[in-house]
């Protein structure tokens, strides 16, 4: 039988992979991949604690979290498509004009 700590360790590993991607990658789509990895890791930790208690409240929160990150991905991909139309590239170092 697994214990809650195992799932929390997996969540920590996924979050550190996401942090690595956010720091290293300059491709806008890879940044969205990293954000999705971090969001999934948080959901995993929430479900592990909800199973430990046990209580369905954690599952309700995870449902909300999944819906919010779906909305976030929709807006992020829209922004990427618009930026690609302007700059002909999805490298965020090319987006210098967006700063001011």
């Amino acid at each position, binding site marked *: 039988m697994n214990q809650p700590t195992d799932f929390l360790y997996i969540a920590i590993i*996924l979050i550190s992979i996401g942090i690595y991607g956010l720091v*290293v990658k300059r491709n806008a*789509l890879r940044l969205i*991949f990293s954000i999705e990895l971090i969001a999934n890791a948080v959901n995993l930790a929430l479900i592990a604690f909800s199973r430990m208690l046990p209580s369905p409240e954690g599952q309700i929160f*995870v449902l909300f979290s999944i819906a919010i990150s779906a909305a*976030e*991905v929709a807006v992020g991909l829209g922004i990427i498509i618009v930026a690609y139309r302007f700059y002909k590239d999805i490298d965020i170092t090319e987006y210098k004009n967006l700063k001011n």
Partner: protein
Amino acid sequence: MVDSVFIGLSIITVGSAILSLESRELLYGGIALAISMLGIAGYFIILDAPFVAMFQIAVYVGAVAVLIIFTVMLVRAPNTVTKKETRKRKIAGILLGLGFLVMAGSILGNSTVTQLKFNENAPVFDVQAIGKGLLTYYSPVLIVLALTLASAVIGALALARREDIEERNEPTN
């Protein structure tokens, strides 16, 4: 004590998470991200939350991953492996990720969370409690969430709209 299903799921999830960031082709990265999300859904099934696992597969693998793959096909980036990822940045990223891993891992290992145990008698699959919670106590949150989703989708549509096509079509009607 961890069992073999957990180890297999961990290898699939973490391996395809790394692959999604490090694959040379962006399209393969998107597919690897979808596989990683399927692995997370497998964890949810292990943790006796099959409804959330269904939701995860429907939303993440069915909608988000497909949306990402469509975007990858729309933006034909000339060079997916960019020269901007300098060696210094890569070392900094690895150090930061490893630092977070060691710090959070040691905090977790030394805390009392390690003594927590799962309840031996697994809760029955109570989607009824989830539905009741969603429609009674959390119903305002549900309404706000629906409005957020609708406005986000409308905003994405308005962002990705092309003005030049609209102007060309105007004289015809």
